[in-house]
Structure formats: C-alpha cells, structure tokens
C-alpha cells in the first residue's frame, strides 16, 4: 500500500528526484556536477520554494509600504485649466471658490461648481448627499466658500470635466466669507459676483418664458431679482405662489449678477430654507398672472 501511495504522491506532487537525477531535466546524471544532457548545474540551484515565499512576503510587505506611502503622501493639486485627456481617472486635489451648489434630495446627490481661477470644475457626489450633510453639517459648501476637494477626475464628452468625491473628509472648507447684508440701492458694478443677504418688497412682476423678474424695493432704492422656473420647482408650492405677489417681502441669500449689461440679483440655493424667506403682504394685493 505504501508503494502505491508513493507512486500516487509522486504523480500529485513535483517529482521527488534524488541527487543522481538532474533537477532540471529529470534525467540520470550519476555523480556529475553538471548535467550532461541539459548542461544545468546540480550544485548552484535555488529552490522554487524561495520564490514562492518571496511572492507571498513581497506582496504583504509591498502592500504595507504602499499603504504607508499613500497615507503620508499629499494628493497633488491640479488646476482646472491644466487638465487634459491624460488626467482622466487621476485622483487630484482642487482648490477654489464655489460658484454654485445644486442638490437633489431624491437622488441623494449634489453638484458643486468650483472656480479655481484657471477654469471651472464640477465636483459631484452620487448617492452621497446625506452622508456629506451629516458629516460636514454647517460646513457643507455654499456659494462663495473657498474649498479644497480631492476627487477622481472624469473627463467625458457628455459631462465635460468632473471630479467625483468619494468621502466627505475629502472636502474641506478653507474659508467662508462673512455674508454681508447689502441694501438694494447701494449695489454697484463693483459688487458683481458678491454673495450677500438682501431683502425687499416686490413692487413689480414681469414674467418671461423661463421665469420672471421681480422688482424689489427697500428704503435705499430698487433692484431686479431674476427667478427661473427651474429654481421655483425646487421650492415648496406655497412659496412659489407667494413670491410673485406684489407687496410680498423677500429675504434671501443672493448673488449680484449681470445680464445684458444690467445688474440683477439671482437666488443662491433657494431650496435651502435658510436662504429664502417669503413673507406675504398683510393684506392681499392683486398680482399680474405668471405664465
């Protein structure tokens, strides 16, 4: 039985060749140091076991070194203007000013447009809005903030330049300007791009195809606020109805913008309840219909 087991074992394993056989070709060599058939040396040989354990040890040690290396390595900073096709799928850091923030509670996603001075880049988080809000809390980016973000670059013909952010800890706020309150009559061309708090009473409503222009008034003067239907869709129904009524007081976080050389105000993230407050007039005033 032992003999049978030996034979089967020798079939199952690497043949156990004794010293009289060449370990290279397996043929009989007798007392020679070099195989007369294949010329391989019988003395200077390294067992394959050595390579086996080099493979196992090397991979474990390599992984540890790689992990430590990446932990201490800074993710390189890239500028939107320098990003080319070859950067597609790279992990990089971006720093710049938040131009706009768009959130979608239904899809649990967000999109932040960042201007780093050389161009625009879209930062995206699919299915991660709730995690980001929970971890970042009040530091969740809003327009005007200067942030740093680490993301995986995705360069596509459909979406353009985007970077996907995997974790809220990869998004840090570098600075947040104090949001100032500005009177409507004191807004000048120098304020273009400014994000501030404004309030005024609706004195005129001019609808257009994709939204409406509200003329707001405060004791210092008047200013236009342009509101698009796409922005209104994100508001609760009651606020949509109220905002277009003459006499309504609107308090909002807004951005000073320019359109056809005329200054206008735009809402900033109106879906956020803290950014838009609409107070209806004490007595209902009839308003022109909004198409």
């Amino acid at each position: 039985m032992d003999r049978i087991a030996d034979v089967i074992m020798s079939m199952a394993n690497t043949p156990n060749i004794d010293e009289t056989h060449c370990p290279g070709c397996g043929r009989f060599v007798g007392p020679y140091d070099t195989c007369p058939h294949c010329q391989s040396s019988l003395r200077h040989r390294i067992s394959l076991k050595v390579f086996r354990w080099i493979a196992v040890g090397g991979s474990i040690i390599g992984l540890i070194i790689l992990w430590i290396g990446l932990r201490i390595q800074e993710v390189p900073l890239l500028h939107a203007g320098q990003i080319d096709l070859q950067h597609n799928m790279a992990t990089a850091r971006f720093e710049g000013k938040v131009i706009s923030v768009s959130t979608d509670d239904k899809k649990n996603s967000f999109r932040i447009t960042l201007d780093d001075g050389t161009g625009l880049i879209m930062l995206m988080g699919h299915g991660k809005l709730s995690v980001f809000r929970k971890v970042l809390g009040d530091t969740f980016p809003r327009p005007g903030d200067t942030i740093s973000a680490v993301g995986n670059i995705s360069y596509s013909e459909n979406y353009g330049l985007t970077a996907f952010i995997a974790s809220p800890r990869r998004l840090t706020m570098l600075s947040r300007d104090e949001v100032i309150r500005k009177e409507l009559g004191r807004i000048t061309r120098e304020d273009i791009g400014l994000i501030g708090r404004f309030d005024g009473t609706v004195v005129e409503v001019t609808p257009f195809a994709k939204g409406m222009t509200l003329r707001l008034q405060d004791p210092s003067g008047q200013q236009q606020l342009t509101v698009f239907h796409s922005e209104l869709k994100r508001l609760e129904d009651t606020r949509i109805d109220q905002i277009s009524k003459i006499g309504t007081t609107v308090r909002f976080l807004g951005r000073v913008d320019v359109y056809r050389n005329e200054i206008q105000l735009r809402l900033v993230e109106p879906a956020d309840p803290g950014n838009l407050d609409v107070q209806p007039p004490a007595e209902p005033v009839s308003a022109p219909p909004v198409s």
Partner: protein
Amino acid sequence: MTEYLTILTFCLAGTLSGAIISLIPSLHIYNTAGIALILWTHIEGVIPYTAVAPFFLSLVVAYAFLNTIPMTLIGAPDESASVTILPGIKYLTLGRGFEATLAGGIGSLIGILFLSVAMPLIYVAMPFIHKILAPHMHAILMAVIVYMLMSEWPKGEGLGRTTWERFRQAWRNVFAGLVTFGLAGILGLIVTSRTLVSPDAGFQNIMPVFIGLFAIPGAIEKLLSRETIPPQHISSSVELTRGDIGWSTLQGVIAGGMAAYLPAVTAGIGGILAGHAVARRGDRLFIVSGGIAKVLYYVGAFLLLYCVTPLTPMGIGRGGLSIILKPVLQPLPRELPMMIGAILLSGCISFLLLIPSTRLTIRLLSRVHYHVLYWATLPLLVVLVVFITGWAGLALMLIASCIGMIPVFFHSRRSNCMAVLLVPIALNMAGYGDTILRLLGLD
C-alpha cells in the same frame, strides 16, 4: 462617400495595427489603445473624429481574434482568459496548437456573427434589463465573488501519509487562492482610493497593476519553465461537430454576456459561471466558447455604450474601451449600424489574418525558443510602465507582480487576481466606499 472611405480605411488600419500588437505576448491592447488616444489628441487630424470609434473598435476586434495565438502557442493569457488557457496548452503539447488556435478563432468569428445579428435585440432589451439589475449590481457582484471562491473548494487528491499531508494537499490551492484574492482585493481598495501614479498618467493608472498581476508573473512562469514546444501540425480542418458549435455558442454567449455587462467580471470568470450553468465538458467546447466569450467581453461591452435610450440616456458604458474613449466620444444610436458593420468587417479580416499569423508564429517558434520572446517582452513591459507611469508605477507593478506570482507558484486560479477590481467595485456599489476609505485612513 468620402466619409465612408475614411471610415473603411481606418477600420482596416485598426485591424492591422491590432493584429500586430496582439502577437506581442503579454502586451494588452488597452495599454496601447490608451497611448494611441493620447497621441491622437496631440496630433489632431490624423484620425478624423468620425473614424475614431471604428478605428479603436477594429483594434480591439483584431486583438480578440489574434491574441489567441500567443495565448495558445506560448501560454500568454490576458486577464480575460487566465482561467481558460489550459485546454489550449493541452492541444499544444499534443502538436495540435494550430488547430486549437483556429478553434478559438472560429469561436471569435461566431461571437462576431452573434453580435451582428443580436445587437438590435440587445439594443431594445438591454436598457430594461439594466434598469432592473443596476440597483442590485453590488449583490450580483458579491454573488459572483462567492461563487468564484467556492468553485475552487477544495482541490487536491486527499492523499498523503499523514492527516496533515492530506489536509495540506487538499487545502493548499484553496488557501493560495484565498490569499491571492484577499491581497489583490486590498491592493484594489488602496489603488482605487489613491494612487502613487502621478495625475499626469491618470489615464493609465491601473496599467502597472494589471501588468504586474497578469503579464509579469506569466512571463516569469514561462521563463522558469523548461518545457519545449513539440513540433506542431498544420491541419487543414478543425475537429468540431455541430453539437460542439451549438453548445459552445450557448456557453460562450452566457459567459461573454456576463463579462460584457457585469463590471470587473472577465470572460474567464464568466466562463467558470457559464461552464457550470451549461454543465457540458470538453476541451473543444472550452476553446470555442472561450473565443466567443472574448469577443463579447471586449467588443460587446463597448457596443453597449450605444444603447442610448430614454431609459439609459448615457448608454450602458462597459469595458475598458468605453473608459478609454469616454473623454472624446459621444455615442449616438444611429451610429450603431456603422459599428456593427465595422466589427463584421474587422472580425472577418482578423479571422483571415489568424490563419497565416498562426502558421508564421509556429514557424518562428520552431526556430526561436519562446524564452527569447519573453526575454524581449519583459523589458518592453517594464520600459512601458516606467515611461508612462514613472518609477511610482514601477513600484506598484512590483507589488502587483508579487501578488500575481502567488497563483503561479501555488497553482491556484489566476482569475483571483481580478479581486483588484471586483472587491472595490462591489463595496463601492454597496455603499461602503466611504467606510473603507476611513478604515484605510486614505480619506
């Protein structure tokens, strides 16, 4: 007419380029395609925009056909076939390498014909299937992982003098497979979180990992091997029955379909699943179905990008070529017939090229030892990695090579190395990406 001729010219150019590249053992078409795309953006106008997709598609079609040659004749499988190579080698040792190569080529031809006929149906059905399956993709991938690992469970003859010897016999390969899977999975989690490779080489940041996991260990294995290639017979027929073709088509389509649609599932892994599903055995079946699966995996996956419907407005981008071409390509459904024409043309030419190329390679191998080819390829791969991804890429490649050598030296499945993509993709899709980043301290 001019546009037609331009596309035709670039289809032929892609096929010929792909055929030449495919003959270099261990060099993957995606590496060269990525470099070609970057070159294209720097030398604008060389390939007109309309011909970009047909050119790259033809490149991949030719690879799916002619890669069978190094795979069978000198045992250089890519990541898609690392589990399906054995029957081919068996044929080779019997002097039937030419026949095995052609059987694989016939499989690829069947794959091309299947895609050409079935693509309209796939275009209609796939968006609905995708809508149903997409939310459960993480669960599907987890199931694939479990199946992959369990199908190797346990091996060995259970023979030995002592209990320990018998235990070791039975579990050695399984354990090696699990270690490979675990280490490759950790590597995948690390490199998909952050990478050593400079952002300037972002488009190929996974290349050193793949060369390390598959190409380098394969080359080292062959260099250590003392086997010689016996004289090969050039036959004028292939041993195949209609039944073989029928069963191979079924198995190949299931394997290739899964590989084309499921992320990180290769044709080899799909082959394991389909093999068990069809429950048919035989080397011929294996080789032919492998050829079909390879075409569906490389070519079919890319064509899914053209399934632009209201349900899938951005198409169903799958496969390496989709990722490579995404920055420059905006697929339109009306281009799908042109793409089908391109694969049909390129596929048929590739099959015709396969026959003389196999003969030529056999003649070459009768004069030049295959070790010489590997000694030439190994430095080429290292230079390619250093040139594109720098020394950091080389370091990454060395780590991956160590992991890739475990299945080579411990005789377990090399497809376990695909955990490098399977694990991070499945965990990210399951919503654990953030937790993993935090655990690794790489957030």
